[in-house]
Protein backbone atom coordinates (compact mmCIF):
# COMPACT_ATOMS: atom_id res chain seq x y z
CA UNK A 1 0.00 0.00 0.00
CA UNK A 2 1.27 3.44 -0.86
CA UNK A 3 0.66 4.71 2.69
CA UNK A 4 3.52 2.62 3.93
CA UNK A 5 6.02 4.44 1.79
CA UNK A 6 8.78 6.42 3.45
CA UNK A 7 8.48 10.16 3.99
CA UNK A 8 10.51 12.16 1.52
CA UNK A 9 12.53 15.34 1.57
CA UNK A 10 13.13 17.93 -1.10
CA UNK A 11 15.03 21.10 -1.83
CA UNK A 12 12.68 23.76 -3.13
CA UNK A 13 13.67 26.85 -5.04
CA UNK A 14 10.64 29.11 -4.81
CA UNK A 15 9.95 32.47 -6.42
CA UNK A 16 9.52 35.07 -3.69
CA UNK A 17 8.28 38.52 -4.58
CA UNK A 18 6.75 40.72 -1.86
CA UNK A 19 4.42 42.62 -4.18
CA UNK A 20 3.71 43.49 -7.79
CA UNK A 21 5.96 46.51 -7.61
CA UNK A 22 9.00 44.91 -6.03
CA UNK A 23 11.70 42.70 -7.47
CA UNK A 24 11.56 38.99 -6.87
CA UNK A 25 14.06 36.16 -6.60
CA UNK A 26 14.33 32.42 -6.14
CA UNK A 27 14.78 31.39 -2.53
CA UNK A 28 15.87 27.95 -1.41
CA UNK A 29 14.02 25.92 1.23
CA UNK A 30 14.49 22.44 2.56
CA UNK A 31 11.37 20.40 3.29
CA UNK A 32 11.33 17.01 4.90
CA UNK A 33 8.89 14.48 6.28
CA UNK A 34 6.65 14.66 3.22
CA UNK A 35 4.12 11.87 2.77
CA UNK A 36 4.42 10.69 -0.86
CA UNK A 37 0.62 10.55 -1.07
CA UNK A 38 0.22 14.20 -0.14
CA UNK A 39 -0.43 16.71 -2.87
CA UNK A 40 2.02 19.29 -4.11
CA UNK A 41 0.04 22.05 -2.40
CA UNK A 42 -0.11 20.10 0.84
CA UNK A 43 3.66 19.96 0.65
CA UNK A 44 3.66 23.77 0.34
CA UNK A 45 1.16 23.98 3.25
CA UNK A 46 3.60 21.93 5.29
CA UNK A 47 6.47 24.23 4.39
CA UNK A 48 4.36 27.28 5.22
CA UNK A 49 3.45 25.94 8.65
CA UNK A 50 7.13 25.51 9.35
CA UNK A 51 7.95 28.97 8.05
CA UNK A 52 5.30 30.53 10.28
CA UNK A 53 6.67 28.68 13.27
CA UNK A 54 10.10 30.07 12.48
CA UNK A 55 8.56 33.54 12.32
CA UNK A 56 9.13 33.77 8.59
CA UNK A 57 6.63 34.91 6.02
CA UNK A 58 4.74 31.99 4.45
CA UNK A 59 4.77 31.60 0.67
CA UNK A 60 1.67 33.06 -0.97
CA UNK A 61 0.04 30.78 -3.54
CA UNK A 62 -3.49 30.50 -4.85
CA UNK A 63 -5.66 27.43 -4.47
CA UNK A 64 -9.26 26.71 -3.68
CA UNK A 65 -11.15 23.54 -4.53
CA UNK A 66 -8.06 21.32 -4.42
CA UNK A 67 -9.68 18.80 -6.69
CA UNK A 68 -8.72 20.18 -10.07
CA UNK A 69 -11.86 21.97 -11.16
CA UNK A 70 -11.84 25.59 -9.97
CA UNK A 71 -8.71 26.63 -11.85
CA UNK A 72 -7.40 28.73 -8.98
CA UNK A 73 -4.11 26.95 -8.41
CA UNK A 74 -1.24 26.84 -10.80
CA UNK A 75 2.49 27.25 -10.59
CA UNK A 76 5.31 26.37 -12.91
CA UNK A 77 7.18 23.39 -11.53
CA UNK A 78 10.61 22.83 -13.02
CA UNK A 79 9.59 24.98 -15.96
CA UNK A 80 6.26 23.30 -16.65
CA UNK A 81 2.86 24.71 -15.70
CA UNK A 82 1.14 22.31 -13.27
CA UNK A 83 4.27 20.18 -13.18
CA UNK A 84 5.51 17.14 -15.06
CA UNK A 85 2.37 14.98 -15.16
CA UNK A 86 -0.10 15.53 -18.00
CA UNK A 87 -3.76 16.36 -17.39
CA UNK A 88 -3.57 17.33 -13.74
CA UNK A 89 -3.67 20.65 -11.98
CA UNK A 90 -1.07 21.59 -9.41
CA UNK A 91 -3.44 20.69 -6.57
CA UNK A 92 -3.97 17.19 -7.94
CA UNK A 93 -0.26 16.56 -8.37
CA UNK A 94 1.09 14.07 -5.86
CA UNK A 95 4.52 14.04 -4.26
CA UNK A 96 4.94 10.40 -5.22
CA UNK A 97 5.76 11.76 -8.68
CA UNK A 98 8.83 13.62 -7.37
CA UNK A 99 11.92 11.64 -6.54
CA UNK A 100 13.10 11.75 -2.96
CA UNK A 101 15.81 14.36 -2.33
CA UNK A 102 15.32 16.07 -5.65
CA UNK A 103 15.38 19.82 -6.20
CA UNK A 104 12.15 21.40 -7.38
CA UNK A 105 11.93 24.89 -8.88
CA UNK A 106 8.59 26.60 -8.25
CA UNK A 107 7.76 29.75 -10.18
CA UNK A 108 4.58 31.67 -11.03
CA UNK A 109 2.54 31.48 -14.24
CA UNK A 110 4.44 34.10 -16.14
CA UNK A 111 3.08 36.58 -18.68
CA UNK A 112 2.77 40.33 -18.94
CA UNK A 113 -1.01 39.91 -18.85
CA UNK A 114 -0.71 37.88 -15.64
CA UNK A 115 1.19 40.29 -13.36
CA UNK A 116 2.57 38.80 -10.18
CA UNK A 117 0.56 39.87 -7.13
CA UNK A 118 2.81 38.24 -4.58
CA UNK A 119 5.18 35.25 -4.63
CA UNK A 120 3.37 32.63 -6.72
CA UNK A 121 0.05 34.49 -6.93
CA UNK A 122 -0.72 36.13 -10.27
CA UNK A 123 -3.58 38.28 -11.49
CA UNK A 124 -5.50 36.48 -14.24
CA UNK A 125 -8.40 38.93 -14.45
CA UNK A 126 -7.50 39.48 -18.11
CA UNK A 127 -9.30 36.18 -18.77
CA UNK A 128 -12.47 37.56 -17.21
CA UNK A 129 -12.27 40.65 -19.37
CA UNK A 130 -11.96 38.52 -22.50
CA UNK A 131 -15.12 36.61 -21.55
CA UNK A 132 -16.78 39.95 -20.81
CA UNK A 133 -16.25 40.91 -24.43
CA UNK A 134 -18.48 38.14 -25.70
CA UNK A 135 -17.88 34.71 -24.19
CA UNK A 136 -21.57 34.02 -23.55
CA UNK A 137 -25.01 33.75 -25.08
CA UNK A 138 -26.95 36.98 -24.66
CA UNK A 139 -30.02 35.61 -22.95
CA UNK A 140 -31.85 37.13 -20.02
CA UNK A 141 -33.22 35.03 -17.20
CA UNK A 142 -36.80 34.08 -17.86
CA UNK A 143 -36.75 34.37 -21.62
CA UNK A 144 -35.54 30.89 -22.47
CA UNK A 145 -37.59 28.54 -24.63
CA UNK A 146 -38.37 24.96 -23.58
CA UNK A 147 -35.09 23.11 -23.18
CA UNK A 148 -35.85 20.26 -25.57
CA UNK A 149 -37.11 22.52 -28.34
CA UNK A 150 -33.82 22.43 -30.23
CA UNK A 151 -32.33 18.94 -30.43
CA UNK A 152 -28.54 18.89 -30.39
CA UNK A 153 -26.70 15.83 -31.64
CA UNK A 154 -24.98 13.82 -28.93
CA UNK A 155 -21.65 14.11 -30.75
CA UNK A 156 -22.03 17.88 -31.08
CA UNK A 157 -22.90 18.23 -27.40
CA UNK A 158 -19.92 16.04 -26.45
CA UNK A 159 -17.64 18.07 -28.67
CA UNK A 160 -18.89 21.32 -27.15
CA UNK A 161 -18.29 19.82 -23.73
CA UNK A 162 -14.71 18.95 -24.71
CA UNK A 163 -14.14 22.68 -25.11
CA UNK A 164 -16.33 23.77 -22.21
CA UNK A 165 -14.25 21.85 -19.67
CA UNK A 166 -11.73 24.72 -19.63
CA UNK A 167 -11.10 25.76 -16.03
CA UNK A 168 -9.48 29.10 -16.90
CA UNK A 169 -6.30 28.33 -14.99
CA UNK A 170 -3.97 30.03 -17.45
CA UNK A 171 -1.56 27.12 -17.95
CA UNK A 172 -1.96 27.60 -21.71
CA UNK A 173 -0.61 31.13 -21.44
CA UNK A 174 2.13 30.16 -19.01
CA UNK A 175 3.33 27.31 -21.21
CA UNK A 176 3.22 29.27 -24.45
CA UNK A 177 6.56 30.63 -25.64
CA UNK A 178 4.56 33.60 -26.94
CA UNK A 179 2.29 33.96 -23.87
CA UNK A 180 -0.73 33.62 -26.11
CA UNK A 181 -4.27 33.12 -24.81
CA UNK A 182 -5.48 31.52 -28.03
CA UNK A 183 -6.40 28.17 -26.50
CA UNK A 184 -8.48 29.79 -23.78
CA UNK A 185 -10.27 32.03 -26.27
CA UNK A 186 -10.62 29.27 -28.85
CA UNK A 187 -12.16 26.86 -26.36
CA UNK A 188 -14.89 29.29 -25.34
CA UNK A 189 -15.53 30.20 -28.96
CA UNK A 190 -15.76 26.61 -30.09
CA UNK A 191 -18.15 25.65 -27.30
CA UNK A 192 -20.39 28.50 -28.33
CA UNK A 193 -20.38 28.00 -32.09
CA UNK A 194 -21.01 24.27 -31.88
CA UNK A 195 -24.26 24.89 -30.05
CA UNK A 196 -27.15 26.48 -31.94
CA UNK A 197 -27.81 28.80 -29.01
CA UNK A 198 -24.33 30.24 -29.22
CA UNK A 199 -23.96 30.29 -32.98
CA UNK A 200 -26.29 33.29 -33.35
CA UNK A 201 -23.71 35.77 -32.08
CA UNK A 202 -20.68 34.08 -33.60
CA UNK A 203 -19.49 37.00 -35.69
CA UNK A 204 -19.60 39.61 -32.98
CA UNK A 205 -18.11 37.16 -30.50
CA UNK A 206 -15.13 36.32 -32.71
CA UNK A 207 -14.24 39.93 -33.36
CA UNK A 208 -14.86 41.18 -29.85
CA UNK A 209 -13.01 38.42 -28.01
CA UNK A 210 -9.96 38.62 -30.27
CA UNK A 211 -9.89 42.39 -29.99
CA UNK A 212 -10.03 42.14 -26.19
CA UNK A 213 -7.43 39.40 -26.08
CA UNK A 214 -5.04 41.61 -28.02
CA UNK A 215 -5.76 44.64 -25.91
CA UNK A 216 -4.95 42.64 -22.77
CA UNK A 217 -1.44 42.16 -24.14
CA UNK A 218 -1.33 38.44 -24.79
CA UNK A 219 1.09 37.31 -27.46
CA UNK A 220 0.19 35.84 -30.83
CA UNK A 221 0.01 32.11 -31.42
CA UNK A 222 2.81 30.42 -33.35
CA UNK A 223 1.27 26.95 -33.28
CA UNK A 224 3.83 25.45 -30.92
CA UNK A 225 0.97 23.43 -29.46
CA UNK A 226 2.57 23.53 -26.02
CA UNK A 227 -0.74 24.74 -24.56
CA UNK A 228 -2.48 21.47 -25.38
CA UNK A 229 0.23 19.53 -23.58
CA UNK A 230 0.08 21.85 -20.57
CA UNK A 231 -3.72 22.00 -20.37
CA UNK A 232 -4.90 20.04 -17.33
CA UNK A 233 -8.13 19.34 -19.19
CA UNK A 234 -6.39 18.24 -22.42
CA UNK A 235 -8.14 20.86 -24.54
CA UNK A 236 -7.01 20.42 -28.12
CA UNK A 237 -5.50 23.05 -30.41
CA UNK A 238 -8.45 22.12 -32.60
CA UNK A 239 -10.03 24.98 -30.67
CA UNK A 240 -7.39 27.37 -32.00
CA UNK A 241 -8.18 26.23 -35.54
CA UNK A 242 -11.83 27.02 -34.79
CA UNK A 243 -10.81 30.44 -33.51
CA UNK A 244 -9.10 31.19 -36.83
CA UNK A 245 -12.02 29.89 -38.87
CA UNK A 246 -14.49 31.91 -36.88
CA UNK A 247 -12.34 34.99 -37.22
CA UNK A 248 -11.96 34.58 -40.97
CA UNK A 249 -15.69 34.12 -41.38
CA UNK A 250 -16.26 37.20 -39.29
CA UNK A 251 -13.96 39.47 -41.27
CA UNK A 252 -14.61 38.17 -44.76
CA UNK A 253 -18.39 37.97 -44.57
Amino acid sequence: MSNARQPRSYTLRVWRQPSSTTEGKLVEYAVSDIDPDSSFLEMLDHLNENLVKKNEEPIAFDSDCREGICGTCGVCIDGRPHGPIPHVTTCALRMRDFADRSTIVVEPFRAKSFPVVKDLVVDRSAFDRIIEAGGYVSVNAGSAPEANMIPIGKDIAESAMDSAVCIGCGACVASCPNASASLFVGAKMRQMVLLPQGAVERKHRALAMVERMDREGFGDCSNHGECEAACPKAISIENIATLRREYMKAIFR
Partner: protein
Amino acid sequence: MNTPRFRLWSSVGKKILTGLTGIALMAFIVMHLLGNLTLLVGADAFNGYTESLHELGWLVIVAELGLIALFGLHAISAVQVWLDKGKARKQHNSLMRTKGAPSKQTIASRSMIVTGAVLLVFVVVHVIQFRFGPSIEQGYVAVVDGAPARDLHRLVVETFKNPVWTGIYVAVMLLLGFHLRHGFWSAFQSIGALGPKLRPLAYSVAVVFAVAMAVGFLILPLYLFLFASVPSGAVAMAGH
Protein backbone atom coordinates in the same frame (compact mmCIF):
# COMPACT_ATOMS: atom_id res chain seq x y z
CA MET B 1 -10.69 49.19 -33.14
CA ASN B 2 -12.79 46.89 -35.25
CA THR B 3 -11.89 48.49 -38.51
CA PRO B 4 -11.07 46.05 -41.29
CA ARG B 5 -7.43 47.10 -41.15
CA PHE B 6 -7.17 46.30 -37.48
CA ARG B 7 -8.95 43.01 -37.97
CA LEU B 8 -6.34 41.78 -40.42
CA TRP B 9 -3.60 43.06 -38.18
CA SER B 10 -4.98 41.53 -34.97
CA SER B 11 -3.16 38.57 -33.47
CA VAL B 12 -5.41 36.12 -35.26
CA GLY B 13 -5.51 38.22 -38.44
CA LYS B 14 -1.73 38.31 -38.65
CA LYS B 15 -1.58 34.60 -38.19
CA ILE B 16 -4.11 34.06 -40.95
CA LEU B 17 -2.02 36.34 -43.17
CA THR B 18 1.16 34.48 -42.31
CA GLY B 19 -0.58 31.21 -43.03
CA LEU B 20 -2.10 32.25 -46.33
CA THR B 21 1.13 33.81 -47.58
CA GLY B 22 3.03 30.78 -46.32
CA ILE B 23 0.81 28.43 -48.28
CA ALA B 24 1.25 30.56 -51.41
CA LEU B 25 5.02 30.62 -50.91
CA MET B 26 5.08 26.87 -50.49
CA ALA B 27 3.19 26.52 -53.75
CA PHE B 28 5.78 28.79 -55.30
CA ILE B 29 8.77 26.82 -54.10
CA VAL B 30 7.22 23.59 -55.32
CA MET B 31 6.90 25.14 -58.79
CA HIS B 32 10.37 26.59 -58.50
CA LEU B 33 11.84 23.22 -57.60
CA LEU B 34 10.05 21.43 -60.41
CA GLY B 35 11.38 24.02 -62.88
CA ASN B 36 14.89 23.80 -61.48
CA LEU B 37 14.94 20.05 -61.80
CA THR B 38 15.39 20.65 -65.55
CA LEU B 39 18.99 21.40 -64.55
CA LEU B 40 19.43 17.68 -64.11
CA VAL B 41 18.35 17.15 -67.72
CA GLY B 42 20.83 19.59 -69.22
CA ALA B 43 21.61 23.10 -70.33
CA ASP B 44 19.08 23.21 -73.16
CA ALA B 45 16.25 21.97 -71.05
CA PHE B 46 16.98 24.48 -68.29
CA ASN B 47 17.50 27.43 -70.62
CA GLY B 48 14.38 26.42 -72.53
CA TYR B 49 12.43 26.45 -69.25
CA THR B 50 13.73 29.85 -68.18
CA GLU B 51 13.11 31.30 -71.63
CA SER B 52 9.53 30.02 -71.64
CA LEU B 53 8.99 31.92 -68.41
CA HIS B 54 10.45 35.05 -70.03
CA GLU B 55 8.07 34.78 -72.90
CA LEU B 56 5.20 35.38 -70.52
CA GLY B 57 6.18 39.04 -70.82
CA TRP B 58 4.38 41.42 -68.46
CA LEU B 59 2.96 38.50 -66.58
CA VAL B 60 6.45 37.90 -65.26
CA ILE B 61 6.50 41.37 -63.74
CA VAL B 62 3.09 40.74 -62.17
CA ALA B 63 4.28 37.42 -60.82
CA GLU B 64 7.45 38.97 -59.48
CA LEU B 65 5.58 41.80 -57.79
CA GLY B 66 3.19 39.23 -56.38
CA LEU B 67 6.08 37.23 -54.98
CA ILE B 68 7.62 40.32 -53.44
CA ALA B 69 4.28 41.08 -51.81
CA LEU B 70 3.97 37.51 -50.52
CA PHE B 71 7.49 37.46 -49.09
CA GLY B 72 7.03 40.91 -47.65
CA LEU B 73 3.70 40.22 -45.97
CA HIS B 74 4.88 36.87 -44.72
CA ALA B 75 8.00 38.39 -43.25
CA ILE B 76 6.38 41.49 -41.79
CA SER B 77 3.51 39.63 -40.14
CA ALA B 78 5.87 36.99 -38.79
CA VAL B 79 8.27 39.60 -37.42
CA GLN B 80 5.30 41.34 -35.82
CA VAL B 81 4.25 38.07 -34.16
CA TRP B 82 7.80 37.75 -32.87
CA LEU B 83 7.87 41.33 -31.57
CA ASP B 84 4.51 40.85 -29.81
CA LYS B 85 5.89 37.75 -28.19
CA GLY B 86 8.65 39.82 -26.65
CA LYS B 87 6.11 42.28 -25.31
CA ALA B 88 3.79 39.58 -23.95
CA ARG B 89 6.33 38.22 -21.52
CA LYS B 90 8.97 40.65 -20.33
CA GLN B 91 10.20 38.74 -17.35
CA HIS B 92 10.96 35.06 -17.81
CA ASN B 93 11.03 32.16 -15.43
CA SER B 94 14.41 30.59 -14.76
CA LEU B 95 13.16 27.39 -16.35
CA MET B 96 10.78 26.79 -19.23
CA ARG B 97 10.46 23.27 -20.52
CA THR B 98 8.14 21.44 -22.83
CA LYS B 99 5.72 18.94 -21.40
CA GLY B 100 6.18 16.62 -24.38
CA ALA B 101 3.48 15.16 -26.61
CA PRO B 102 1.05 16.38 -27.80
CA SER B 103 3.16 19.54 -27.78
CA LYS B 104 4.44 20.43 -31.21
CA GLN B 105 7.18 22.59 -29.84
CA THR B 106 10.45 21.67 -31.59
CA ILE B 107 13.73 23.32 -32.51
CA ALA B 108 12.03 23.99 -35.83
CA SER B 109 9.04 25.75 -34.26
CA ARG B 110 11.20 27.76 -31.88
CA SER B 111 13.61 28.89 -34.60
CA MET B 112 11.10 30.07 -37.21
CA ILE B 113 12.14 33.68 -36.79
CA VAL B 114 15.83 32.78 -37.23
CA THR B 115 15.38 30.43 -40.18
CA GLY B 116 12.91 32.91 -41.63
CA ALA B 117 15.38 35.80 -41.32
CA VAL B 118 18.14 33.75 -42.95
CA LEU B 119 15.79 32.76 -45.76
CA LEU B 120 14.83 36.38 -46.31
CA VAL B 121 18.46 37.46 -46.68
CA PHE B 122 19.05 34.46 -48.86
CA VAL B 123 16.15 35.32 -51.15
CA VAL B 124 17.56 38.81 -51.68
CA VAL B 125 21.04 37.45 -52.45
CA HIS B 126 19.57 34.74 -54.64
CA VAL B 127 17.54 37.23 -56.68
CA ILE B 128 20.50 39.60 -57.08
CA GLN B 129 22.68 36.69 -58.09
CA PHE B 130 20.44 35.13 -60.70
CA ARG B 131 17.57 37.46 -61.56
CA PHE B 132 19.82 40.49 -61.81
CA GLY B 133 23.04 38.62 -62.55
CA PRO B 134 24.95 38.68 -65.88
CA SER B 135 22.69 38.29 -68.93
CA ILE B 136 22.92 38.34 -72.72
CA GLU B 137 24.60 41.73 -72.66
CA GLN B 138 27.40 40.25 -70.55
CA GLY B 139 27.76 37.42 -73.05
CA TYR B 140 25.62 34.80 -71.38
CA VAL B 141 23.86 33.75 -74.54
CA ALA B 142 22.28 30.45 -75.33
CA VAL B 143 20.20 29.38 -78.27
CA VAL B 144 16.64 28.37 -77.54
CA ASP B 145 14.38 27.34 -80.43
CA GLY B 146 16.80 28.96 -82.82
CA ALA B 147 16.75 32.32 -81.10
CA PRO B 148 19.29 33.79 -78.72
CA ALA B 149 18.32 33.63 -75.07
CA ARG B 150 19.90 34.23 -71.71
CA ASP B 151 22.24 31.38 -70.75
CA LEU B 152 21.17 31.09 -67.15
CA HIS B 153 22.43 27.54 -67.07
CA ARG B 154 25.99 28.74 -67.45
CA LEU B 155 25.58 31.24 -64.63
CA VAL B 156 24.15 28.55 -62.39
CA VAL B 157 26.90 26.09 -63.16
CA GLU B 158 29.63 28.70 -62.70
CA THR B 159 28.17 29.68 -59.38
CA PHE B 160 27.98 26.15 -58.05
CA LYS B 161 31.44 25.21 -59.21
CA ASN B 162 32.42 27.56 -56.40
CA PRO B 163 32.52 25.46 -53.22
CA VAL B 164 31.69 28.49 -51.06
CA TRP B 165 28.44 29.17 -52.88
CA THR B 166 27.53 25.51 -52.91
CA GLY B 167 28.20 25.33 -49.18
CA ILE B 168 26.06 28.38 -48.50
CA TYR B 169 23.20 27.09 -50.63
CA VAL B 170 23.26 23.65 -49.07
CA ALA B 171 23.25 25.15 -45.57
CA VAL B 172 20.37 27.50 -46.35
CA MET B 173 18.35 24.68 -47.90
CA LEU B 174 18.75 22.71 -44.68
CA LEU B 175 17.36 25.71 -42.81
CA LEU B 176 14.52 25.84 -45.32
CA GLY B 177 13.75 22.26 -44.35
CA PHE B 178 13.53 23.29 -40.71
CA HIS B 179 11.33 26.23 -41.58
CA LEU B 180 8.97 24.01 -43.55
CA ARG B 181 8.88 21.27 -40.93
CA HIS B 182 6.92 23.63 -38.69
CA GLY B 183 5.70 26.00 -41.38
CA PHE B 184 3.87 23.45 -43.50
CA TRP B 185 1.36 22.23 -40.95
CA SER B 186 1.38 25.52 -39.07
CA ALA B 187 0.21 27.42 -42.14
CA PHE B 188 -2.84 25.21 -42.50
CA GLN B 189 -3.50 25.33 -38.76
CA SER B 190 -3.26 29.12 -38.94
CA ILE B 191 -6.11 29.35 -41.39
CA GLY B 192 -8.15 26.88 -39.39
CA ALA B 193 -8.03 24.23 -42.09
CA LEU B 194 -7.09 21.35 -39.83
CA GLY B 195 -9.65 19.25 -38.03
CA PRO B 196 -8.86 16.48 -35.56
CA LYS B 197 -8.24 13.94 -38.32
CA LEU B 198 -6.23 16.15 -40.64
CA ARG B 199 -3.95 17.64 -38.02
CA PRO B 200 -1.86 14.56 -37.25
CA LEU B 201 -1.71 13.87 -40.96
CA ALA B 202 -0.57 17.38 -41.80
CA TYR B 203 1.97 17.23 -39.00
CA SER B 204 3.49 14.06 -40.48
CA VAL B 205 3.25 15.22 -44.06
CA ALA B 206 5.15 18.33 -43.00
CA VAL B 207 8.24 16.21 -42.38
CA VAL B 208 7.95 14.59 -45.78
CA PHE B 209 7.38 17.93 -47.45
CA ALA B 210 10.25 19.60 -45.61
CA VAL B 211 12.68 16.82 -46.46
CA ALA B 212 11.51 16.72 -50.07
CA MET B 213 11.97 20.46 -50.54
CA ALA B 214 15.29 20.65 -48.74
CA VAL B 215 16.75 17.62 -50.46
CA GLY B 216 15.25 18.60 -53.80
CA PHE B 217 16.85 22.01 -53.67
CA LEU B 218 20.20 21.05 -52.26
CA ILE B 219 20.68 18.20 -54.70
CA LEU B 220 21.04 20.76 -57.49
CA PRO B 221 24.08 22.71 -56.25
CA LEU B 222 25.68 19.47 -55.06
CA TYR B 223 25.07 17.76 -58.39
CA LEU B 224 26.41 20.69 -60.34
CA PHE B 225 29.41 21.05 -58.05
CA LEU B 226 30.33 17.38 -58.36
CA PHE B 227 29.26 16.37 -61.84
CA ALA B 228 28.58 19.29 -64.19
CA SER B 229 31.17 20.10 -66.82
CA VAL B 230 32.28 23.69 -67.28
CA PRO B 231 29.68 25.17 -69.61
CA SER B 232 30.70 25.00 -73.24
CA GLY B 233 28.79 28.17 -73.96
CA ALA B 234 31.35 30.14 -72.04
CA VAL B 235 34.14 28.97 -74.26
CA ALA B 236 32.11 29.38 -77.45
CA MET B 237 31.05 32.87 -76.55
CA ALA B 238 34.57 33.84 -75.52
CA GLY B 239 35.62 33.27 -79.10
CA HIS B 240 33.44 36.15 -80.39
